[in-house]
């Protein structure tokens, strides 16, 4: 692929200062404490595709989402929009309108005091896309129809809608500036399953019709499998595995990815006994040295406890980038499993 990806993260980091207030620090004689929410993440999202980031709470995936639309400034590394620095790109109205975001909570993402038409029309007005009230009204009506609502719904308030309908309104708002890059932060995790299917189908249809590029954030692997072209698995602020979706789900390489898949209860497994991965996610304020997964990893050895593994092409599945010493050294038994 020679084309510039629409979004690219290069060694992207975001640290938060979680120190106690200065006075308390002084009394307790503590230093400053930094939370490395995102710690050197690199990935690219080619135009027209869906890149997903998946992981458990606190792994930094939502922070990446916010970095990707400029809600946070990077502490280190670069966020690039079509090869241009994101912060610089966002200074231009013409570039800013090309990126939009869809949020998790359909109850918090719509201003309860605004009518739906005003909510959906806000970006149109902000970017001066439609001229005059009639054109605005028409555009809002068309957007509502596009997401499966009726233009008459524009006169109503958010509380009159169900969760799924609100998420449609949220999508209509995101589409209203004719964006090309949509960052979707857990767009279906607050919804019931049958409604989740509606929204996922809608998002896939819109991607086909409008050629959208998605950065899709989710904790739900099954959902990620349905929507993604490429998937990055995050653990404690880092990407531990990054692979084409089919490869990731058929041949997961990192021990964490495998544990995560093993942990998901599946309908086909009624009554099955499982051996869940032990331990808990350590505090991101004081992560383990070396590979941060080492305390929970069945394959961990001294090297894993000392040396941080780099994200490199995996032997056996070269399309996969994985940060694991065991995979690099061939200790993960991948060849055996493949031939067995």
């Amino acid at each position, binding site marked *: 692929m020679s084309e510039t990806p629409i979004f690219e993260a290069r060694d992207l980091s975001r640290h938060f200062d979680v120190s106690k207030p200065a006075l308390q620090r002084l009394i307790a004689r503590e230093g400053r404490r930094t939370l490395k929410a995102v710690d050197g993440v690199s990935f690219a999202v080619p135009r027209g595709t869906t890149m997903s980031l998946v992981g458990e709470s606190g792994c930094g995936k939502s922070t990446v989402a916010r970095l990707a639309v400029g809600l946070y400034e990077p502490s280190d590394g670069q966020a690039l929009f079509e090869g241009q620095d994101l912060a610089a790109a966002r200074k231009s109205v013409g570039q800013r309108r090309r990126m939009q975001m869809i*949020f998790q909570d359909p109850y918090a993402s*719509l*201003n309860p005091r605004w009518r739906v038409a005003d909510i959906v029309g806000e970006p149109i007005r902000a970017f001066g896309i439609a001229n005059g009230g009639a054109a605005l009204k028409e555009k809002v009506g068309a957007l509502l129809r596009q997401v499966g609502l009726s233009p008459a719904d524009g006169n109503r308030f958010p509380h009159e809608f169900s969760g799924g309908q609100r998420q449609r309104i949220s999508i209509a708002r995101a589409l209203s500036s004719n964006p090309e890059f949509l960052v979707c932060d857990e767009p279906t995790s607050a919804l019931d399953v049958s409604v989740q299917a509606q929204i996922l189908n809608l998002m896939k249809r819109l991607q086909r019709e409008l050629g959208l590029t998605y950065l899709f954030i989710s904790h739900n692997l099954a959902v990620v499998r349905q929507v993604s072209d490429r998937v990055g698995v995050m653990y404690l602020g880092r990407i531990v595995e990054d692979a084409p979706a089919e490869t990731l789900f058929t041949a997961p390489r990192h021990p964490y990815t495998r544990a995560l898949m093993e942990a998901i209860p599946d309908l086909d497994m009624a009554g099955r006994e499982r051996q869940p991965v032990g331990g808990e996610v350590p505090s991101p304020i004081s992560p383990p040295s070396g590979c941060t997964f080492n305390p929970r990893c069945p394959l961990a050895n001294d090297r894993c406890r000392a040396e941080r593994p780099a994200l490199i092409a995996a032997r056996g599945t070269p399309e996969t980038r994985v940060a694991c010493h065991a995979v690099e050294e061939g200790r993960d038994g991948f060849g055996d499993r493949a031939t067995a």
Partner: protein
Amino acid sequence: MGAVSRFLESDLFWSFRRTPTAVLSAIVAFVIVVGAVFAPWLAPYNPFDLASLDLMDAFNPPAFMPEGTAAHLIGTDDQGRDVLSAIMYGARVSLLVGVSATAFALILGVLVGLLAGYAGGAVDAVLMRIADVQLTFPNILIALLVDGVARAVLPREVHDEIAIYVVIVAIGISDWPRFARTVRGSALVERNKEYVLAARVIGISPARIMLTHVLPNVLGPLLVLATLNLGLAIVSEATLSFLGVGVPPTQPSLGTLIRIGNDFLFSGEWWITVFPGVALVAMVLSVNLLGDWLRDALNPRLR
């Protein structure tokens, strides 16, 4: 149609009708407000019309007492002014000061609160420490201070002329921190909500986000606070006037009337001070009870 019928249909009005205290308070407040606002037309006498005053009428007791006359339902004061009329005119001044001071505190508090809540960091810390410091002083002390400064700085004639504005500003300044803290607290919550993030993604300016997104969502608590504050502001004004540093004697408020009457309390002419006092209590109590009801009615957890 429209707004009125929507209001009559609303949960708020429904809760109002089902709360006897609220209905009673509203009736009392309504009577007082109408009596005060339309005093020039409704009051039986104009207590400030020197021509109509007759010292022969001084110290007339209320109508229900043996020497009382029907001409002065609740008696007259030492200068022969009709107490009822004086109360109506006095309530007018009290209300004017109370409402204006609350509006002043509200606007100042909202601006400071929004700024602190949105800017965060050092701006927030500085503004809120100022508010904290001010909250540690009793309101009346701050009002006295402002008033004292105004008296010291302004020539006497000028001061008398603008005394009422000085009182409004004095009370308003002492009350703004409450509004600022409420708005800041709500703004801190709202600014992290996803609808605000959505507005930030499209590049809406912080000031605009605060005014169009955040402010409409903090109006509920503000309304409650303003109502409760109105009662307090009226009391503050009465206290200042009672202490003789409030509104000028040419425009007596309820507090002034109570002070004047106080001199006669123990010489038997109790009505001169008691009736203004009753009017003040009724006004403040009804406003406060309305505020309490509003707070409960707008709190979803207490429904």
